[in-house]
C-alpha cells in the first residue's frame, strides 16, 4: 500500500494523577500506525483505556510519555491554539451521546465548527444544508434536534464532524446509545464516508459494529493485545502479557 501514514503512535503511555497523590497507569507502551483511508475499530473491555486513547488521538489530551504524530506533526510540540486549529480542520469528532445544542437549530449545530474557521453566516448555513444532504437529512436544517430520533441526531453529529472536510473522523462508541437497526444505518454511513477516502477510527463494544471495519485494534488493561484484520481476529491470536 502506498497510502501515507496519518496516525503514528510510538510508545504512548498515559498515567492519570489523582488528587491525594494516587496515580493510575491507563495506557502502557502503545504502538501502531494508521494509514490514510483505513477503517479501524478499537475494541476492548470496559475501563481498558479506549476512550483515553481516543482522546489522545483526537488531540484533546497529551500522552504522559511517548510520541504521537498526526499527519506528520508531533502533537507534543503544539500549543493549545495550534491544537484547536488541528481539531477544527483535520479531525472530526462523533460522540456517544451526540452532544448537540438542543436549543439551537440543526443547521446551527452542523455548522458550529465553521464559526471557529471564521466562515460567514450565510456560507455556514448553506454548507450545513449541503452536509445534511450527505447524511440523508434533507430539509431538517431549521428544526431543533429535540424533534428528531436518536439515529437522526447522530447523523446530525456526523454531518457536523464532516463539515470541515476532515481527513480523519474519530468516533467514541457512536452507536452506544442506539438500537441495532439504527446502529446499522450509522455504520453504513461511516462505510460510505470511508469509501470516499476519509480515515475512520471508532471505539465499540459490539462485534456487529466492529464488523464494518477492516482493521481491529484491541486493548486490554492498557496493553495492545491484537492489531490486524478484523475478519482474521480470534481470541487465540491475542498477545498474552
Amino acid at each position: 500500500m502506498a497510502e501515507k501514514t496519518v496516525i503514528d503512535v510510538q510508545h504512548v503511555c498515559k498515567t492519570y494523577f489523582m488528587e491525594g497523590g494516587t496515580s493510575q497507569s491507563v495506557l502502557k507502551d502503545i504502538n501502531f500506525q494508521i494509514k490514510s483511508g483505513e477503517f479501524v475499530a478499537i475494541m476492548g473491555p470496559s475501563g481498558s483505556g479506549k476512550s483515553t486513547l481516543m482522546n489522545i488521538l483526537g488531540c484533546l489530551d497529551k500522552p504522559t510519555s511517548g510520541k504521537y504524530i498526526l499527519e506528520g506533526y508531533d502533537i507534543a510540540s503544539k500549543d493549545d491554539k495550534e491544537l484547536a486549529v488541528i481539531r477544527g480542520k483535520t479531525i472530526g469528532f462523533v460522540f456517544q451521546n451526540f452532544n448537540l445544542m438542543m436549543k439551537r437549530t440543526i443547521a446551527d449545530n452542523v455548522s458550529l465548527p465553521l464559526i471557529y474557521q471564521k466562515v460567514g453566516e450565510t456560507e455556514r448555513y448553506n454548507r450545513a444544508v449541503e452536509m445534511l444532504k450527505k447524511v440523508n437529512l434533507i430539509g431538517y436544517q431549521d428544526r431543533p434536534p429535540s424533534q428528531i430520533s436518536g439515529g437522526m441526531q447522530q447523523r446530525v453529529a456526523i454531518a457536523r464532524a464532516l463539515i470541515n472536510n476532515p481527513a480523519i473522523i474519530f468516533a467514541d462508541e457512536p452507536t452506544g446509545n442506539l438500537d441495532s437497526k439504527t446502529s446499522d444505518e450509522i455504520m453504513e454511513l461511516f462505510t460510505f464516508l470511508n469509501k470516499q477516502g476519509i480515515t475512520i477510527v471508532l471505539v465499540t463494544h459490539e462485534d456487529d459494529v466492529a464488523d464494518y471495519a477492516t482493521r481491529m485494534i484491541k486493548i486490554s488493561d492498557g496493553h495492545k493485545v491484537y492489531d490486524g484484520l478484523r475478519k482474521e481476529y480470534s481470541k487465540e491470536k491475542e498477545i498474552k502479557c
Partner: protein
Amino acid sequence: MLTAIIKEAWISIASYKLRTFLTMLGIMIGVAAVVMMVSAGQAVQNRITDTFASMGSNLILIGPAELVTGGVRGGRGLPSVTVADVAALKTLKDVETTSYLMNAAVQAVYGSRNYGVSVKGTNPDYLAVNNWEIEDGIMFTEKDVRAAKPYAVIGQTVVDELFGLQNPIGKTIRLKGKPFTVIGTLREKGDGLMGDDQDNIILMPSTTVRQRLAGSPRPQYTGIAFVKATSEDKMELVAKRVEYMLRTRHRLKDGVKNDFTVRLMTEMVEKVRSVGFVLSALLAAIASISLIVGSIGIMNMMLVSVTERTREIGTRKALGAPNSWIMMQFLAESVLISFIGSFVGMVFGIAFSQLGGHLFGYEVPISIWSVIVSVTVAVVVGIVSGLMPALKAMRLNPIDALRYQ
C-alpha cells in the same frame, strides 16, 4: 469574528429569557438609581447656582460684625454701616452701584384682604444690584427717596394675594394703618434657596420705611448694604477697598477689629455648591451599592451557566474552538446582559428623574453624566462580573468537560 461571538452570546442569553431578564433587572435598578441620584444632585446644584445668579453674582455684602466672645460666635452686632457710608462706597473704583436694605415684616392690607409681607427700604439701585426687573409701572427715584414718598413697588405674590386679577397700579395699600401708593410691580423670581418666597416683597424708599414704619431704632443705619462690582474678577479688589474705606470712615485704629463684615457672593456660591456636590456624590455612592449587588447577580448567573453548559464547552473545544473564543463568548454574554440592563436602566432613570422633577417643580437636566455613568457601568460591570466565569469556562479541560454529566 467579534460579530460572530456577539451573535453566539446573544443567542445563548436569549434562550434563557427569564433568568437573563431577572439578572438584567439588578443592573437596571442599579443604573436607574445612580442616574436618578446624579440628576437629583445636579438639579439641586443648578437651582442653587440659578438662585445666586438671580440675586446677582458680582455682589459684595456688607453686614454687621459678628460678635465673638471667647472664640464662640455670638450672633450679630448692631448695624454699623450708615446710608451715608453706602453713598460714599459708590465713589470707589470698579464699583458699579451700591444699595442697602432696611427690613420690616408687616401686614399689608387692601380692601378686605391682608397678607404678611417683607418690606425692604432701599434705593432705586436695588433693582440693578439684585437683578430685579419692573413688570409693570415704575420704580421710585432718588428724588422720591429724598422726599420719603409713600410709594410701594410690590412683588408678584403680593399682587396675587392682595389684588387677584385687578390691576394694582395706582391703588392704595395700608401698612400699619398708613397708606402707600402702588407705583410698580416686580417681575416674578420664584422660590429662593431655602424655599422662601422671593416674590413676597414690597420695595419702598429707605427714608419712607424709616419714617413711616419706624423699623430701626437707629434709623440712619442700614441692615445690609450691597456693593456691586463692575465684573466678577474685580470683586476681591473692590472688597479690599470697601474694607479700607469703611475702616477710615468708622475711624478704626490699627489692631481694632472691623465693626462690619464683608462677604463675596461668589465665595458663598462656591461654598453652597461644594456642599451640593458632596451631597450628590454621596447619594450616587449609596445608589451604586445596588449596582454592586446587580453585578454579583450577573457573576452568579454566569457561573451557573458555565457549570450547566460544561458539556457544550467541551464539545465546542473538541470541534475546534480556541480557548480565547470560549472566554470571549462568555465575557460577551455578561457584557451584553449588563449593557442592555444599563441602557434600559438609564432610560428609566432619566424618565423617572424627569417625572420627579415635574412633580416637585424642579428643572432636571438630562446630563451627559447619565450616559457616561451608564456606559462605564455597563462595560466595567460586564467585564468584572463576567471575567471569573469566562476564565473558568476557558480553563475547562475538554476531556473532563465531555465526561461531565
